[in-house]
């Protein structure tokens, strides 16, 4: 992390500022991706006026980085009204979209409004593979047309590609495609369960062998080839008093229905902006305070894990996978093991050495049912 970014992260944690807020504008989507973790509910989505009021509140709370996502954001007829309002409040605005509905006019407007980046979901450079994931024939071609329109308008574009069984062999072609188009790209091998706890998307995850192959590619894993990070043989960690991640400290998620959660990956409803102001939920919700109180030393297995230098544990992932916010995420442990192996280290994640016993497990304080 660059020095100034790190300083801002630490300062926002210390000042309890929700520096990064992710707002889902809608759960409606014009694609039907096989791995999608969104769940459409019967409740009404936030209206234009409710969202504008929310943005006012979030600006007052000090948020700088604002992500509009969904669902497909361009399905909101008021998208530009909301982006304009957000930019008037001096937010850094980033959109996540499939770009199917982008036109040259819309792209130019986003540029004029000062949107910093649009992330576009792409699953393959091969239309047959991509369209099989989205279940929409012709979607790759249209998404790439949208990407080019945005690029030509001067908006920074990044192709985001979750890696799963269906497309893991395609990532080099996607990277070549991005280079040819002169835009950014990124890959994520973590497929998550649905927000309602449905674990069916997890079956799409790539195998440990495929993961090791991906991690051995230095262009995808910049730390590949560098000496293994030092870890104490007994798993003693020097970061026991640090926070596990930014969720609830300087990061926050607000659903299309107004639910406030510590992070998009941590489905713990802390309150709803239709019932109480955002600041009240952020500063005083018991659920938010409970998440905010967690330190590395409170993690019953990870706090003594020798593989921690190779791990980017996600508490939300742990919660969704096991129901235990304080425990390891099996998927993160698998990734840590693969990273360690690729780095030439023999360490094994603590969760794989011994099963947690009743006496070492903390009670499950959050569940997603």
């Amino acid at each position: 992390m660059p020095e100034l970014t790190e300083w801002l992260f630490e300062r926002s944690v210390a000042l309890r500022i929700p520096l990064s807020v992710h707002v889902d504008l809608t759960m409606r989507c014009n694609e039907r991706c096989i791995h999608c973790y969104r769940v459409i509910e019967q409740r009404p989505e936030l209206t234009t006026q409710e969202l504008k009021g929310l943005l006012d509140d979030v600006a007052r709370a000090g948020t700088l980085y604002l992500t509009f996502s969904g669902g497909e954001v361009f399905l909101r007829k008021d998208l530009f009204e909301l982006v304009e309002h957000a930019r008037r409040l001096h937010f850094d605005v980033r959109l996540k979209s499939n770009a199917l509905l982008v036109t040259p006019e819309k792209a130019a407007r986003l540029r004029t409004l000062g949107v910093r980046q649009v992330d576009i979901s792409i699953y393959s450079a091969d239309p047959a593979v991509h369209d099989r994931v989205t279940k929409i024939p012709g979607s790759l071609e249209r998404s790439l047309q949208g990407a080019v329109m945005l690029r030509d308008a001067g908006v920074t574009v990044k192709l985001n590609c979750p890696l799963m069984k269906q497309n893991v062999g395609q990532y080099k072609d996607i990277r070549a495609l991005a280079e040819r188009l002169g835009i950014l790209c990124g890959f994520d091998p973590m497929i998550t369960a649905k927000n309602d706890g449905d674990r069916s998307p997890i079956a799409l995850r790539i195998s440990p062998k495929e993961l090791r192959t991906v991690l051995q590619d230095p262009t995808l894993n910049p730390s590949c080839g560098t000496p293994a990070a030092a870890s104490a043989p007994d798993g003693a960690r020097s970061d026991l008093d640090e926070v596990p991640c930014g969720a609830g400290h300087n990061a926050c998620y607000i659903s299309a229905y107004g639910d406030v959660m510590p992070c998009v990956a941590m489905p713990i409803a802390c309150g709803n902006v239709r019932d109480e102001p955002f600041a009240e939920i952020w500063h005083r919700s018991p659920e938010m305070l409970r998440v905010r109180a967690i330190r590395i030393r409170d993690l019953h297995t990870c706090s003594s894990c020798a593989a921690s230098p190779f791990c980017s544990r996600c508490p939300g992932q742990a919660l969704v996978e096991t129901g235990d916010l304080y425990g390891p995420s099996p998927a993160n442990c698998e990734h840590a093991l693969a990273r360690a192996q690729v780095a030439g280290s023999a360490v094994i994640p603590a969760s794989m050495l011994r099963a947690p016993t009743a006496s070492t497990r903390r009670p499950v304080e959050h569940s997603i049912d």
Partner: protein
Amino acid sequence: MPEQYLARNSRTAWRVYDGEAVILLAEDSTLNTLNAVGTLIWEGADGKTPVSSLVGRICTEFDVEPVQAERDVTAFVDKLSQRGLLNVSASPHEPR
């Protein structure tokens, strides 16, 4: 010296934390931080407030001599203009 007006680049995002501005430029995603005096100038860079007025506020709020304040503001504005964060004009205008 002719009057000048400062306007923030419309492609910046920014917040003030504990009296210090943090600015992000969309073009290159770079972060910039300003001290309290710089933050006063940044917040006043609305395209309508004359620089002389900002210099006056700095003299009052930070107990600085006008000559020194004017010199500091000129150097600061040059630096932020070079970074593409501020635009300087000879007449007031509404920010885009």
